C-alpha cells in the first residue's frame, strides 16, 4: 500500500508544513475527500528533537487558530450536540503518504471519525428523503 503513494519527501529533504500540509485537502486510500488538515501535532522529544507526530482534523482546531476562545465554544457545542462530540481527530504522520496540493492519507476515511457527520446526516435525514439515491 505504501508503494501507491511514493511521493513523501525522503530523509533529509525539507518539508514545508505550513505551505504543503496545513489547510490542505486530505484524501484517503479510496480518494475520498476527507476534510482539511486543520492542525499539526509536534512533540518535543527528550533529546531535543521536534517530531511531527500527527495531522489533525476538526472545526474546533481550525477555529482556535483564529480565536482560541471561540474554538473552545465550538468544542463545547460539539461535546453537547456534535456527532464527533467536539473531538479533533488525529491521523498519525506515518500514515501521510503525500503532501502538496492534496495530502494523501493511508486510511479508510469511512472507518474513522472523518466522515461521522456525513454518515449521521445520511442515516438520520438524507436517505429518508425521496430521490436521495437518484
Amino acid at each position, binding site marked *: 500500500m505504501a508503494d501507491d503513494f511514493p511521493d513523501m519527501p525522503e530523509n533529509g529533504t525539507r518539508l514545508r508544513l*505550513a505551505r504543503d500540509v*496545513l*489547510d*490542505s*485537502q*486530505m484524501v484517503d486510500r479510496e480518494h*475520498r*475527500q*476527507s*476534510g*482539511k488538515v*486543520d492542525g499539526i501535532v509536534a512533540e518535543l522529544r527528550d533529546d531535543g528533537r521536534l517530531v511531527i507526530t500527527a495531522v489533525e*482534523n476538526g*472545526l474546533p482546531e*481550525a*477555529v482556535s*487558530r*483564529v480565536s482560541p476562545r471561540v474554538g473552545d465554544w465550538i468544542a463545547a457545542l460539539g461535546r453537547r450536540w456534535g456527532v464527533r462530540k467536539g473531538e479533533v481527530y488525529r491521523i498519525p504522520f506515518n500514515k501521510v503518504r503525500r503532501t*502538496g*496540493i492534496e495530502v494523501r492519507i493511508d486510511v479508510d476515511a469511512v472507518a474513522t471519525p472523518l466522515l461521522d*457527520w*456525513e454518515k449521521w*446526516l*445520511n442515516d438520520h*435525514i*438524507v*436517505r429518508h*428523503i425521496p*430521490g*436521495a*439515491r*437518484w
Partner: protein
Amino acid sequence: MKPGKLLQVALGVLTSIGGFLDVGAIATAADAGASFRFSLLWVVLIGTICVIFLVEMPGRLAAVSKHSYADAVRERFGFQFYIWPILAEFVVDFLVLGAEIGGVCIALQLLTGIAFHWWAIPVALAVWLTAWLGTFDFIENGVALLGLITLAFVAGAIVLHPPWGEVARGFVPAPAPHEPAHYWFTAVSIMGALISPYLLYFYSSGAIEDGWGKQDLTMNRLVAGVGMSFGSLVQMGVLVTAAMVLAPRGIGVDQYGQIALTLVGPFGKWGYYLFAVSLGITCFGACMEQALETGFIVSQALGWNWGQSKRPVDATRFTMAYTLSIAASTVLMVVGIDPLKLTLFSMALTAVMLPLVVTPLLVIMNDKHYLGEHTNGWVTNAVVGLIIGLTFVMAVVAIPLEYLGGG
C-alpha cells in the same frame, strides 16, 4: 477545433448569455437607465471586461490544478485568513439568494396577481427540488438556455430606435449629469451586481464538476470572453429600454413592477409577459447557482465531499448546506421584505467585500504550484491589479454612497 469542442463552446456561450442576467443586473441596469438614460453604459462595459477576466481565471485554475478557488484560497492563505471572506460571503449569499427568490416571486405575482410573499415557500421548494434531483449539467445548461428569452431586452432596445449617437456616447466615462451621489451609487451597484464574488467560486466548482482539464483552456477562454461579452448586451438592453421608456416619463425604479413597463413600451401585452417570464427564469437560474455556491464554498472550505452531480446520499453535508441556505433565505421573502430594496442593498454590500475575495486571486494565479506553466501573463496581472484597485475604491465608497444617494 473539433466539432464536438465547437459545440461545447457554443453551448457555453449560449448559457453565458442566457445566464447573465439576475435580479441584481436587472434592477441596477433599469435604475441606471431610468435615472441617467445612457450615461452609465460605460460602467456595464468596464464591469463586463472585469467579469471576463474574473471568470476565465478560476476556470483555468480548476482545469489545471483540479482545485476550486475556495480550496486554493484556504490552502494558500490559511484558515485564519479564509474565515473572513467566507463569513462575508455567507452574509451576502443569504441576502442575494433572498433577493433572487424574491425575483421569482415577483415574476409569479406579475403573472398571477397573487402577492409575492405567498410564493416564497413554493419557489424555495422548487429551487430545492431542482438542486436535489437535477444534475449540474441540467441546472447550468438547461435553465440558462431557457434564459435566452432575456434577449427580449435586446430586441426591445432595437425596436425602440434609441438615438444611437447618444447610446455610443454612453460608453465614454463622464461625470454625473445630475444627482452625483445617486449616479455613483448606481455605478457601484452595477459593478457589485456584475463582479459578483459567487462567480469566482461557482465557476471554478463548475469546471471541476464538468471534469475540465488542460485541453479545455481554450474553450474556457472563449466562453469567458465571447459568452460574457454577448451576455452583457442583454444587460445593456435592459438599460437602454429603461432609458427609452421610463426616463422620458420621469418614472423611477422603486419596485419591479415599474421595470415591467420597459418591455410593455415596445411590445405591449407580449412585453408584459416576456418581462415576467424573463425575470422568473433568470432569477430561478440565479437561485440555483447561489444556493449551490453556498454548498460549494462551505464544503470546499472544510474539505467535505461535494458535487451537484453526485447523489445526495454521496455528499450529505454539501446537500444539507444548500438546503439550509435556501431555507434561511426564504424567510426574507416570507416576512415580506421588499425584493428591490433587498437587491440594491445586497449589491452595495457585495461591493464592500469584493477586495477580500478578489485579492487572493492575484497570488494564486501566479502560483506555479497550482498552475504550472499556465500562470497569468503580465497583461492579465495588470488587469487584475486594476480590478483589485477598483474593488478597494468601491468598498470604501459603497455604503456612504448608499446613504447619500441610494434612495
